[in-house]
């Protein structure tokens, strides 16, 4: 399983290395979403200072969506789906591999995007730790759920439209929990309990979807 996971992740990262989609397109897209929402919320009304964390995670959420879409587009070459099914690769491995690749790309993106936030809002080191943990947990969740739903939408001709529909509601909890956790981290208010529980939520989410994926990916990948 792990061997297969590495193989698949390696393959996806190599493709990214050749096409640079995550770097050249998803990253700017994240910035874009951030800025656009800032606008939709209307600068004049001072909503934004308060919504900063939310904005950050909305941006990450949409980037995750794109990353997953890309990770599925890669598999959409004609015949590759069949080839994958015949390959004898352990589905769980394929799942972990693709999720891993997505997670890695997201983490880099979050880091780059986050540096901005951290600097701009002068986060306390304590908060920083919390932020990092939050990011890790959230990313694992996003990647796992994303990959799982990605394969559900994959192969259908309506991938572009169906995936967002399926994925967004699932990721909503991550969005909220991550937002709350990071807000605490940013405001530095060490009312640790709430942050902790939000974090717990994120971790459980990630765990659940990782487990679920490992189990369910087989049927999904192979019956499709």
């Amino acid at each position, binding site marked *: 399983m792990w061997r297969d996971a590495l*193989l698949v992740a390696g393959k996806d990262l*190599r493709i990214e290395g050749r*096409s640079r989609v995550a770097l050249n397109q998803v990253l700017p897209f994240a910035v874009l979403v951030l800025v656009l929402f800032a606008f939709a919320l209307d600068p004049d009304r001072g909503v934004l200072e308060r919504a900063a964390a939310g904005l950050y995670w909305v941006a990450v959420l949409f980037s995750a969506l794109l990353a997953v879409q890309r990770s599925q587009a890669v598999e959409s070459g*004609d015949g590759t789906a*069949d*080839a994958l099914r*015949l*390959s*004898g690769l352990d589905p769980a491995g394929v799942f972990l591999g693709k999720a891993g690749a997505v997670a890695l790309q997201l983490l880099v993106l979050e880091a780059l995007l986050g540096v901005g936030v951290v600097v701009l809002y002068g986060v306390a080191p304590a908060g920083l730790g919390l932020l990092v943990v939050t990011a890790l947990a959230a990313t694992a969740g996003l990647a796992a759920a994303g990959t799982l739903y990605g394969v559900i939408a994959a192969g259908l001709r309506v991938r572009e439209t169906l995936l967002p529909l399926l994925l967004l509601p699932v990721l909503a909890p991550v969005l909220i929990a991550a937002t709350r956790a990071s807000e605490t981290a940013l405001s530095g208010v060490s009312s640790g309990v709430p942050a902790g529980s939000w974090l717990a939520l994120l971790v459980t989410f990630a765990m659940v979807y990782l487990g679920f994926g490992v189990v369910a990916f087989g049927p999904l990948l192979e019956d499709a």
Partner: protein
Amino acid sequence: MDPAVRLRSAVCLLGRFPALSGIDLDVRRGEVVAVEGPNGAGKTTLLRALAGLVPVTGGVAEVLGVDLRTARRKVRPRVALLSQAGGLYDELTVADNLRFWARAAGRSMAAVEEAMAELGLDGRLADVAAGRLSTGQRRRVALAALVTRDSELWLLDEPHAGLDAAGRDLVDALVLGAARRGATVVLVSHELERAAALSVRTVSIVGGRTVLGATPAAPLPRPSDQEAAGVA
């Protein structure tokens, strides 16, 4: 030893459409069988069913001793399918594609090199992104993947299509080679002479059902006939 393929009035649905409406087919281990039939007869569907990719919903269906109706996934790792679609990652180079599939199937990198050389994919083409290849070149890469994968049961969907003269002869050589090594080969082709030359018998499919022999009216084979066909 159980036969390579044993189908009795097997039925396959694509969506609501019965692409296979009652296939009877027996293939013994080590046999090379050609399958022919008009467009849309169900040849591709048949191969995909034998590979365990589409569910068989009726009749009896066994491949390599595995019952397709209950455990079709078990056959997948044991067959080598050359589909009409290549199954390549367009962004990866030819070499990377072949290496990936070889590793996935647990084959050695040496085997990859060999196959690439055999199909004339070493040299310039090795480092071209698969998406940029010409039709025939893609087919060659798919063939190389097939050769690297090598297995008990080869399922070839129009292996000659799109290949140049040299390529076609190469395919014939590959098939005969596989047969010599004891592999079973089911070969779909519209080039009847070529196919006939390679195979011990030709199975005709029309409207999703087997129609052995040239004429649709031909009777279903009794075991004795098959022996005959086998040695022919």
